[in-house]
C-alpha cells in the first residue's frame, strides 16, 4: 500500500503538473507573436469578409496579424501575388485569376468564391430613369457603357447577343467605374452594364433603374438560379506551400467571417462603411453576395464555377481551357 500510495501520489502530482501545463498552453500559444500575412485589399463591397474578420477579431483568434495593402484592380493584385508582395488577395476577379494561373500556375489559388445571382446582385443592366426600356431587348439603338476590362466588355456583349442585339444595334463603350454615376446623371449614356454599389447608388439617387440583374447566371450559365462565381479570395501557391499552418488558420478566420455574413447579413454589411468605397448612406441597401468556402461547395457548385471559367476561355479572356480544381484549395 505504502509503495502503492507513493506511486498514486506521484501519479497524482504528475497528473496535476500535466493539467497545469495543458492549461498554460493556450496562454503560451497566445504569447507567441502573431503571424503576419500580407493581404492585398481592393476596397469593394465584395471584400466584406476581410473587414468582418478584421473587425470582429476572427484573425486575432487564430493569431494572425494581417497587413492591409490597398491595391486597386485585378492586375495590381495579380502582379503583387506573382512577386510575393502579397500572400492573399481578398477579392480577385475569377477570369483574371484563372488567366494569371495559365501564365504562372497556382499564383491565384482560391479558398472561397463569391456567387452573383438575381438574389445576390452584382452585375446588371441599368437604364436612365427616363429611357424607354423595360427589358434588355429594348436597348436597341441605345448608347451604352460597360464596366471596363475585356471580361466585363465581352460579358455585356454576350448578354446583349442572347437578347437578340447584334453589334451595330447599339453602341457600347468601356468606362472606368468611377465615372458610371456621373455620366448617367449627365445623360451621356442611355444605360449600361454596371456593378454594385454603383447600381444601388444610381437607384437611390433616382437617376437610373435596374433592367435585370444576375445576368451571368441566366444568360451565360443558362440557369437563373446558378451560382456565377465571378470573384473570390485567392492565396498564392507559395504562401500555401511555404506556411501551410498560417494559410490554414487564415482560411479558418475567413470561413468564420463568411459564416457570420451568411447568418447575419444586416449586421455584417455595416462593416462596409468606412472600410470600402461604398458611401455610408447606401451601406444598408447594397446587395450581399453568396460567399462560399471551397471546402463547403457541392459538385454542382464546382461545375457552375467551371462553366464560368470555360466561358472566359470562349471569349478569349482565359487563353486556354483549364481545370479549376487545380487552382482551388479546400482549406
Amino acid at each position, binding site marked *: 500500500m505504502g509503495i502503492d500510495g507513493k506511486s498514486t501520489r506521484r501519479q497524482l502530482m504528475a497528473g496535476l503538473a500535466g493539467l497545469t501545463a495543458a492549461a498554460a498552453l493556450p496562454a503560451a500559444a497566445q504569447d507567441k507573436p502573431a503571424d503576419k500575412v500580407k493581404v492585398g485589399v481592393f476596397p469593394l463591397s465584395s471584400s466584406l469578409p476581410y473587414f468582418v474578420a478584421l473587425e470582429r477579431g476572427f484573425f486575432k483568434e487564430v493569431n494572425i496579424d494581417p497587413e492591409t495593402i490597398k491595391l486597386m484592380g*485585378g492586375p495590381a493584385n495579380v502582379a503583387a501575388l506573382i512577386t510575393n508582395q502579397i500572400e492573399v488577395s481578398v477579392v480577385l476577379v475569377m477570369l483574371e485569376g484563372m488567366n494569371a494561373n495559365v501564365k504562372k500556375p497556382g499564383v491565384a489559388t482560391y479558398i472561397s468564391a463569391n456567387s452573383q445571382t438575381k438574389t445576390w446582385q452584382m452585375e446588371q443592366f441599368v437604364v436612365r430613369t427616363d429611357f424607354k426600356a423595360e427589358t434588355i431587348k429594348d436597348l436597341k439603338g441605345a448608347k451604352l457603357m460597360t464596366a471596363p476590362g475585356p471580361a466585363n466588355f465581352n460579358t455585356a456583349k454576350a448578354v446583349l447577343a442572347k437578347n437578340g442585339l447584334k453589334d451595330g444595334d447599339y453602341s457600347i463603350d468601356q468606362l472606368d467605374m468611377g465615372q458610371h454615376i456621373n455620366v448617367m446623371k449627365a445623360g451621356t449614356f442611355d444605360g449600361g452594364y454596371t456593378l454594385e454599389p454603383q447600381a444601388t447608388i444610381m437607384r437611390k439617387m433616382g437617376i437610373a433603374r435596374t433592367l435585370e440583374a444576375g445576368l451571368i447566371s441566366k444568360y451565360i450559365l443558362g440557369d437563373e438560379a446558378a451560382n456565377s462565381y465571378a470573384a473570390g479570395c485567392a492565396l498564392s501557391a507559395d504562401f500555401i506551400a511555404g506556411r501551410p499552418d498560417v494559410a490554414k488558420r487564415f482560411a479558418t478566420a475567413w470561413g468564420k467571417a463568411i459564416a457570420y455574413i451568411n447568418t447575419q447579413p444586416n449586421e455584417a454589411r455595416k462593416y462596409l462603411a468606412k472600410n470600402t468605397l461604398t458611401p455610408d448612406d447606401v451601406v444598408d441597401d447594397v446587395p450581399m453576395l453568396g460567399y462560399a468556402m471551397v471546402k463547403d461547395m457541392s459538385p454542382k457548385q464546382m461545375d457552375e464555377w467551371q462553366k464560368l471559367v470555360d466561358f472566359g476561355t470562349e471569349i478569349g479572356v482565359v487563353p486556354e481551357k483549364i481545370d479549376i480544381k487545380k487552382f482551388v484549395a479546400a482549406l
Partner: protein
Amino acid sequence: MNAMKRFDSFLPLIGVVGLIAVWSLTVQFKLVDPVLLPGPMETFRALWKGMTGGALGVDFAKTVWRTVISTAIATVIAIPLGIMLGSWERLYRSVEFVIDFFRSTPASAMFPLFLVLFGVGDKTKISVAAFGAVLVILFNVAYGVMNARKTRLLAAKVMGASRVGVLVDVMLLESLPQTFVGLRNGVSLALVIIVVAEMFIGSQDGLGHSVFEAQQLFNMPEMYAAIFAAGALGYGLNLVFLLIERYFVHWSGK
C-alpha cells in the same frame, strides 16, 4: 577629328544598347518574375507582329490621328491668343492665375467634366488633350512675345515701324523659338493625355486601350510593345517639331 565626329554620331545608341543590356540581364538572372517582364526579343517580336498586320498598327494610327488633331486645335487657339496676351502684358497678368492654375492641374482630373460636356468618343479625348496643350503653348508664346529683345523692339520703333509692323516683324519672329518650345511640350502633353484617356474613358482603340487590355489579360509582351509604340510616337512627334524649328527658325539663339 573626323573619327571623333563619326563616334559622336553613334552616341545616342549607347543609351539604347545600355537599356537593352540591363533589360536582358534582368530577365536572364530573373531579377523580376519572367511573367511580369518578358525579354527584349519577345517584346520586339510582339511589337513587329502588332505593327505589321496586327491590331497594334491600327491602335497606333488612331492615337496619331487623335494627337495630331488635338495639337492642331491647340495651336490654332494658343498662338494668336498667346501673341495677343504677350503683346499686352497687363492683360496677360490679369489672366495669369487662371492659366497657371489650369496648367498645373492634371488633365486627367478634368475627365469627368469633359465627359459630361462632350460625351464619350473622340470628342472628349481630343478636347481634353487640346485643353492641356493650349495652356502650355499659350504660356510659351506669351512669354516669347514678352521677352522679345528690347534692343530690337527699340530699333524697329526708332526706324519708324508701325505697331502692327513691330508685332509681326519683331515680336512674332522673336517669339518663334519659345513658341516651338511650347509646341514640343504641347504635343508631348497631348499624347500623354490621349493615351491616358484611351485607357480610362470609353475607348475601343488607340495605344492606351491596347496597353490597358494587354495589362488586363496579362499579355506582357503585347503590353510592353504598346508602351514602346507610344514612346516611339512621342519621340517622333518631338523630332518632327524640332526639325521644323531648325528649318524655319534658323536664327534661334543668335
